[in-house]
């Protein structure tokens, strides 16, 4: 009899405590740790019940609103690491306390990659008088290959960049800017966040040097302020490992006064930085306040230089280095932008284009093809 108490008591305690915790803790709308919205308790209607929708929602509700959810994810990650597993939820547990996005050669979509290269090439052909600079930013798993878990095989970014160079070889107005040499030379520095999939201000800076070189301009010196030292990024959110040190965000401050208009004037500010975002979980949004469909930055520099940046979020921390050199900079994020690019370029008098994506995104994004629409 006595021998049974321990297992029975523990088993029932765990199950009952789990049950009660759903009832006494209020539902959370958003999980800042995981940086995503959670399923809340579904409404029980006859229709939802009969279609099976109710029970399906209840299942994800029960997983999402589990009181110790973030602790459970941490426990899972720690047990996996203890068992020698070197990745989880699409994230490598790299060396030097570094997380990196995992993409195996099989996971790389060659078809989509080539479609996107084609779209950019067609876009440039349609605007043959305007110089195009295309930068595919290598990500941490290439530049920081040494920090990958031992034996890990990620897709070959060198090969993909070479393919892009070959692809654009005949496009006379396209210059492919490959920042990987510059980045590799400084790989000992903090080029990428350890907890996030973006490059740091310093990583963006070395890429900026490559761009300046391609444009035949002299790069500025790097100087940056520390903005926060408590940044836990998207990779961290996926696995919530125990005891990881947060990242530091630095930012380069351009000298020019700016007027920044978001989404065609829906919101106008006087800074390319958004202090409010330092209070939220995803602090990378400090740069430009996150991704908008369209952002126009007007500077006081009357030099007749109007730059269009077709981009993903890697461009947001890249922007500060460019501000001083242009009269206006227009940034378009095709994931959210649905206007006509040709019209847009005409009305904004664009005379230079930068296409800036990180390589991890370039074989996944399905919105880039929008640029080739007439």
């Amino acid at each position, binding site marked *: 009899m006595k021998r049974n108490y321990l297992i*029975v008591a523990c088993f029932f305690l*765990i199950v009952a405590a*789990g049950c009660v915790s759903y009832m006494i803790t209020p539902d959370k709308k958003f999980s800042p740790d995981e940086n995503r919205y959670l399923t809340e308790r579904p409404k029980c209607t006859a229709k939802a019940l*009969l279609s099976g929708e109710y029970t399906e929602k209840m299942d994800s509700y*029960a997983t999402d609103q*589990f009181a110790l959810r973030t602790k459970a994810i941490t426990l899972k990650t720690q047990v996996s690491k203890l068992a020698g597993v070197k990745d989880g939820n699409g994230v490598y547990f790299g060396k030097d306390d570094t997380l990196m996005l995992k993409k195996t050669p099989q996971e790389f979509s060659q078809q989509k990659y080539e479609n996107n290269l084609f779209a950019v090439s067609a876009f440039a052909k349609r605007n043959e008088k305007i110089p195009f600079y295309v930068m595919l930013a290598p990500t941490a798993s290439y530049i920081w290959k040494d920090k990958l878990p031992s034996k890990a095989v990620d897709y070959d970014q060198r090969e993909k960049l070479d393919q892009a160079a070959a692809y654009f070889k005949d496009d006379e107005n396209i210059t492919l800017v490959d920042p990987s040499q510059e980045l590799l030379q400084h790989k000992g520095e903090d080029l990428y966040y350890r907890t996030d999939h973006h490059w740091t201000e310093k990583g963006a800076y070395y890429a900026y040097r490559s761009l300046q070189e391609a444009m035949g301009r002299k790069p500025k010196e790097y100087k940056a302020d520390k903005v926060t030292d408590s940044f836990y990024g998207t990779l961290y959110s996926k696995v919530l490992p125990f005891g990881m040190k947060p990242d530091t965000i630095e930012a380069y401050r351009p000298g020019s006064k700016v007027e920044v208009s978001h989404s065609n004037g829906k919101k106008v500010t006087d800074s390319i930085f958004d202090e409010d975002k330092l209070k939220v979980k995803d602090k990378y949004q400090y740069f430009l306040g996150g991704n908008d469909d369209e952002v126009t930055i007007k500077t006081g520099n009357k030099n007749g230089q109007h730059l269009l940046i077709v981009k993903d979020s890697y461009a947001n921390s890249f922007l500060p280095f460019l501000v001083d050199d242009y009269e206006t900079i227009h940034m378009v994020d095709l994931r959210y932008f649905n206007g006509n690019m040709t019209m847009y370029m005409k009305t904004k008098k664009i005379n230079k284009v930068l296409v800036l994506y990180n390589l991890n995104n370039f074989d996944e994004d399905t919105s880039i093809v929008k640029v080739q629409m007439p």
Partner: protein
Amino acid sequence: MVFSSSAFLFFFLPITLIAYYCCPAKFKNLILVFASLLFYAWGEPKYILIMLFSTVFDYINGRLIGKFQEAGKNQAAKGVMIVSVVGNLGILGFFKYTNLALSTVHSITGMVVPTLSIALPIGISFYTFQTMSYTLDVYRKQVKPQHNIIDFAAYVTCFPQLVAGPIVRYIDLETQLKDHRVTMDDVAEGCRRFCIGMGKKVLLANSAGAIWDSLIASDLTRVPVATAWIGAVCYTFQIFFDFSGYSDMAIGLGKLFGFTFPENFNLPYISKSITEFWRRWHISLSTWFKEYVYIPLGGNRKGVPRQILNLLIVWALTGFWHGAAYNFLLWGLYYGVLLIIEKFLLKKYLDKMPAALCHLYTMFLVVMGWVLFACDDFGKLKQYFAAMFGANGAGVANGSTLYILCSHLVLFILCVLCSSTLPRKLGEKVSEKYIWVKDLILILIFVVSISFIIGSSYNPFLYFRF
């Protein structure tokens, strides 16, 4: 609903257990029926009707058979038995095999035939087999017809073994339906067994399954030999730990409700022949086919050619029972042929061979069998076998082979150890005094399993085709 979900663990289970333990004995079966119907309705509410129909249908059939036999009308009793079998197989056939039949007609004749948009009711292969065992056993006078429809419904709908077995025959549960007192020993044993099953399913099967799934989804023409073998072995582990884990959880839950279900798996991967493997794998299914198909067909009593035919019939049906696709049929026949060869040719050699060699021979064939089982697309199957034997020219190994091995070394070791007799021997060695050590380990497994359920989206249910 599946056992390895937070909705089951934290809503369904505690609420059902409280209701069940608190209510007086005569209502316990009623509570169980309600809970089971809710459990079943969780995924697909409308199919609850089929289950209710099945229950009432065979309840009436059982009563009628009993009545006719009492009155000496054996022909009438036989008629009802046939109606019952046809009815049950009709339900199973309609929901499970209609679309396969239609698409086969299409591919043979080229006729344009519509396919039905019917989802397979979960667990239908399990419960139609269970209800059939009832009417057949009533007809064979092995059990008395059940007069109490609630007790009978409790047998048919009984949620612990509803969706993935074991296939409990009515004869095994007959007396338990009247009296399922729960002792402290039962509850403790139930908890232990449930934790073991949960660990097998969530920690071992899901982890091994993730490797197999990512492999089978990749371009198989570029998969080298070693990776293909690792993948096949991963699937071999996945299906065993998933299925036997599920049976363990079912048996454990049964204990919590005062039922003793028959064992379903007995360390199949230690077998030294295919014959032994099938004595250890999915025991309740093999028993069912032996009892209700093989022996009625004449078994081995009508000469060798007839016995071979009987074996082939049984194994074709066994294969087909696992899913409405031709690879399952092929998989069944594969085992049928292997068993016949062993029985009539190989047995005397196997008896003399060293144990290690016998084991290697068995596991080689079993792994091959699982690849056949896992690939319902014959194109994929061909590519996979090509990869396993190096016929795709992708070499022996590549960088990712080593990474998979390194990253999952502990998992593989655990899988091997847990397939062996070691845990059982250790469990037996633990004296009464130190049972708390074992229990602490089980609780730890339970807690970690919960964290894996909460923390990952990958939690497949393999038996949706059964």
